[in-house]
């Protein structure tokens, strides 16, 4: 789960990591009032959960209270990559001497947490890691030892600090690690962490992603799970998430569902191979019940941009008769408002096919044949 910048900074401040003084505003008037309690110049920052807001104009600077009010007005009228901005963070602007990077995430192939530091922060760090990986200092973290003071000092020194500044920076690294472990982060980064002109360090921006699988032991985050993700998810995605389905909205016109992440991805790929375009990814998971199939199909039928639907089920734990009943339940409730191609094989296949055949619904054997058919039908 991604956290907003203002949430991330509040949490880091709780770990004694310095962050700029600031507050959250939802209207220009409120922003002006809050700014009056801060020291100018100000930074006004759109609170959205996607990267790249700076380039889109979502961060503006202001010298007076009126400028802060105007900047807020502009940003609150903005859509950043299709997402409406609802909140801004208004802060005292940090006086930058140098912008650095520090983050903690997991290394999939080494199977451990890793700390990353760079002397050039503020930019797209994934891009640096991709193009000039040598500029990124990396420390793999042994879970039985952790990230210790000497690790932190070595990293701060490798990016060019010595003496008191090195110790100050290393102390912040250690605090961030403590936060990361206590909160099950998937990623936490200070990008940039700024060395100010008066010789201190401040986390000028912060990004936190909490490991979704660990939310059960952090109720403080899971409480806001669905309502606040509205800013990140489409309406279709919210509906699917509420029904407990793995769903990703795409831009094409063929609605697709199946069982198993890999199989559904391969179905999307097959549709594209036959020059069709998938409208979504929907995985009903293993052992889906009649009501889950019904819910999933209803969500696909409700997608205005699709002109055909492809259902691809290979029953293992999932039973074809359950799937067939789910499909019928949807048809009886809302009807088939667009053409539907069904591929259904595996566990209890005969029973599933009998149920659908009696209802006059034709079923195909092959996934590739079904993908081809769906592409044909999507063209009307």
């Amino acid at each position, binding site marked *: 789960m991604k956290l907003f910048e203002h949430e991330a900074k509040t949490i880091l401040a709780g770990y004694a990591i310095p962050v700029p003084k600031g507050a959250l505003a939802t209207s220009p008037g409120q922003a002006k009032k809050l700014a009056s309690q801060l020291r100018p110049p100000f930074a006004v920052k759109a609170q959205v959960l996607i990267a790249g807001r700076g380039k889109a104009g979502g961060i503006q600077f202001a010298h007076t209270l009126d400028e802060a009010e105007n900047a807020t007005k502009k940003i609150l009228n903005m859509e950043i990559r299709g997402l409406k901005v609802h909140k801004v963070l208004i802060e005292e602007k940090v006086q930058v001497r140098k912008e650095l990077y520090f983050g903690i995430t*997991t290394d*999939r*192939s080494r*199977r*451990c*947490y890793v700390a990353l530091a760079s002397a050039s922060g503020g930019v*797209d760090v*994934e*891009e640096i890691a*991709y193009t000039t990986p040598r500029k990124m200092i990396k420390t793999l973290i*042994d*879970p*039985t030892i952790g990230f210790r003071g000497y690790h932190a000092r070595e990293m701060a020194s490798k990016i060019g600090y010595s003496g008191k500044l090195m110790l100050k920076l290393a102390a912040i690294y250690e605090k961030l690690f403590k936060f990361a*472990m206590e909160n*099950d982060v*998937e990623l936490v980064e200070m990008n940039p962490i700024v060395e100010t002109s008066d010789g201190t360090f401040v986390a000028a921006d912060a990004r936190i992603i909490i*490991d*979704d*699988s*660990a939310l*059960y*032991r952090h109720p403080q985050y899971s409480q806001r799970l669905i309502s606040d993700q509205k800013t990140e998810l489409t309406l279709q995605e919210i509906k699917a998430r509420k029904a407990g389905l*793995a769903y*990703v909205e*795409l831009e094409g016109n063929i609605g697709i569902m*199946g*069982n*198993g*992440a*890999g*199989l*559904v*991805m*391969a179905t*999307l*790929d*097959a*549709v*594209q*191979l036959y020059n069709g375009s*998938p409208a979504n*990814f929907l*995985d009903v998971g*293993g052992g889906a019940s009649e009501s889950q199939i019904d819910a999933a199909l209803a969500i696909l039928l409700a997608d205005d941009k699709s002109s055909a639907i492809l259902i691809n089920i*290979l*029953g*293992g*734990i999932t039973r074809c008769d359950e799937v067939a009943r789910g499909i019928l339940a949807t048809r009886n409730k809302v009807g088939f408002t667009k053409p539907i191609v069904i591929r259904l*094989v*595996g*566990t209890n296949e005969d029973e599933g096919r009998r149920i659908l055949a009696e209802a006059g619904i034709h079923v195909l054997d092959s*996934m*590739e044949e079904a993908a081809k058919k769906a592409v044909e039908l999507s063209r009307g």
Partner: protein
Amino acid sequence: MGIIVGKETRVVVQGITGTQGSFHTRLMLDYGTSIVAGVTPGKGGTEVHNVPVYDTVKEAILRHDVNASIIFVPQPFAAEAALESIEAGIRTVAIITEHIPLRDTIDVLTHAKRKGATIIGPNTPGIITPGECKLGIMPSHVFRHGTVGIASRSGTLTYEIAVELTKYGFGQSTCVGLGGDPMVGLSFVDVLKMFSKDSQTRAVVLIGEIGGIAEEQAAEYIATKEFSKHVVAFVAGRTAPSGKRMGHAGAIVIGRAGTAKSKIEAFKAAGIGVAAKVSDVRKLLAGGIQEG
């Protein structure tokens, strides 16, 4: 033969009294897997499908000759169940449970490495050596004894490909589900090393998907270590957008990293045939086996 599991595998089922645990214990027994004990804390002294249940893994090991474990324990307790088996000296542990926190997975994999244990999963359908042992939840009828080894990051997609292979006469030596999580016990390279030593395996199918660099590492290993058996690859997720999790926690493109394109290019550069669709896997395999 085959790898990791076979006729000699003797299993303890952790979480045997739960719905999933009990259901799949029956299916594994039906397949012929030797299940000698079960563990559910607080249910010691009972039986499930005539398999004796104990409170702890240690107790089960004292009374039975166990060398593998399969875990159906719910998410909050699954990592601890795995640690219990590893510490008790079990060297093969399949973790079926999904949604285990990353931090717990790291602990399990670190301890497994120190103790020399092989972890299959988490979030895996398990592993099957057709005709000998099924340690998992896969539909067994799609697999046949044969010479093709399969390593896969995805459950149903493996069944889809196995159905095709079986239909056209390509039986399997062992099929390993690596798991759909970002961090899992076995990589493609680990499994390739085992297949290279297995005399029954004559060709290997790698079923990858977006996310991480396991496919690229496999391609590099095959190219530089002169892996001598025929390899065919399939990569799911050519249409996946960046930044979105496609069902599996591990199936995510981050920025420019982990794309299907990068994996397909790596395989092709290593001289490995990449199937564009499921039915191409057997065709590529047929070519290779004839040539070989």
